[in-house]
């Protein structure tokens, strides 16, 4: 496996509102996400966190710049290539994005049924095993609307893990969950990553809790990025905007006073 899983090189993404006003969400942004580790992409609302994920997945196109996944430029590939690349990703969406007209079992089995030629009997075994690991046994015949928020996230994770992804992307995984469920979900992420060994990218504003999981942190701030090798580095940063970020999102207690002038 290569050392860099995903690389952004001078990426620009601008949105135009209905009245023609332009808003640049990512302005010549460059960073890289190391393979096999957990990288947290943090930032306030509207700073382009979810856009970053959508760009990686090819659900949106960049206005300028390049994005590399395992060294391959995904801004310049055909639809078929993009499709084959996507089989290497697993995604857990903000609202879990389960298909609400299907049972939990059918939801989790969908990628296997659609993307592989595995016989139905083996699909059943694999799905039931994943559901057991994620403590969803006995809920397989329920519909998503009959599950709690935490269970929906777990079902979404079970579905995302079916094709043994190399890169797992989590979009605001703890939104709408209570603190205990949030903690459980984070434990689950650590466990599954240890088990499967994927590269994990978590987009979240759940600071500071999500930082416990992070090997690397990327902070998006008004179109620019700051990259940190470790969560601790954020606290030691002397940059004004980062100190402000730490103060507002993590609280005064996390702010380092060593560099205070």
């Amino acid at each position: 496996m290569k050392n860099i899983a995903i690389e952004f090189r001078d990426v620009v993404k601008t949105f135009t509102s209905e009245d023609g006003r332009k808003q640049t969400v990512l302005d010549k942004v460059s960073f890289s996400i190391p393979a096999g580790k957990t990288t947290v992409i943090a930032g306030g609302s509207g700073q382009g966190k979810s856009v970053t994920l959508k760009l990686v997945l090819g659900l949106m196109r960049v206005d300028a710049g390049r994005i590399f996944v395992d060294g391959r430029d995904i801004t310049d590939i055909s639809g078929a290539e993009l499709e084959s690349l996507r089989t290497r990703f697993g995604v857990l969406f903000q609202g879990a994005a389960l298909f609400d007209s299907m049972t939990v079992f059918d939801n989790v089995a969908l990628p296997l049924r659609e993307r592989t030629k595995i016989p139905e009997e083996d699909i059943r075994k694999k799905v039931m095993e994943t559901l057991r690991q994620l403590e969803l046994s006995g809920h397989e015949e329920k519909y998503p609307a009959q599950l709690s928020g935490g269970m929906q996230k777990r079902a979404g994770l079970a579905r995302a893990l079916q094709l043994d992804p190399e890169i797992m992307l989590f979009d605001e995984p703890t939104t709408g969950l209570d603190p205990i469920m949030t903690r459980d979900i984070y434990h689950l992420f650590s466990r599954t990553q240890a088990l499967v060994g994927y590269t994990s990218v978590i987009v979240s504003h759940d600071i500071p809790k999500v930082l416990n999981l992070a090997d690397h942190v990327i902070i998006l701030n008004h179109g620019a990025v700051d990259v940190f090798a470790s969560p601790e580095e954020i606290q030691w940063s002397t940059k004004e905007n980062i100190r402000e970020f730490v103060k507002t999102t993590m609280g005064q207690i996390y702010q380092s006073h060593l560099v205070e002038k």
Partner: protein
Amino acid sequence: MQPNPIAKLGNTGLYILGDLGRMGLYLFRALRGVFRRPFRFMELIRQIHFIGAGSTAVIFFTALSTGMVLGLQGYYSLKKFGAEGMLGSAVSLTIIMELGPVLTALMVAGRAGSAMCAELGIMRISEQIDALECMAVDPFRYLISPKFLATLISVPLLTAIFDLVGIAGGYLVGVNFKGVNPGSFIDGMQTSITNHDIRLGFIKSVVFAMLVVWICTGRGYFVREIRGAGFGAESVSRVTTQAVVLSSISVLIFDYLLTAVLL
């Protein structure tokens, strides 16, 4: 700051061009999806059941009432010229060439088109379509193309049912209630209807089916891109209304165009 009117106009022009381009590509991908493997046969059957079988009752009653009213109106008008014997021909021609395809398409747009639009709109805003794409499952082949194929199969069949029931309604009123000679009703129908008329009705039903499924599913699929739709549940409701109105108007416009070209 208020943008100047020329910029606003240009912006609207760009939006309309963008929308047409999007919808054009959408149609291409949806039709291509029909031929992509693996083929979802059970989904096709489910959609035919929903769009076709599910619409039979509403088509039956629309056709019956239309045919009966046509019978009454036709009788009233033809009687003035002493030509009641032409009732069979008048009713059947009107229904087969015009009212059958048009009213069937409008009913399907209202009943199944709105449902397809809302379904795809909700799937889009709850990221279910994104999830499909991320699993490398083509949403066109998986979701949209079966709806296209099912509508293209169902609407001509529903139109045939409409034609049959509508003519029967006209016969019921003309012959049973108004005393038109049954022989002249049937004979008038048989001599005046040609293969060309039936072909025109069939072509119309296929074109209208395409318009309805294209516009209704396309609006739902692009719910986020549509100007002024807003967000969340409201955007889906607005886009659904827009889809039904737009597809109904398109059916009426194309009805005129096809009649003008093919008649």
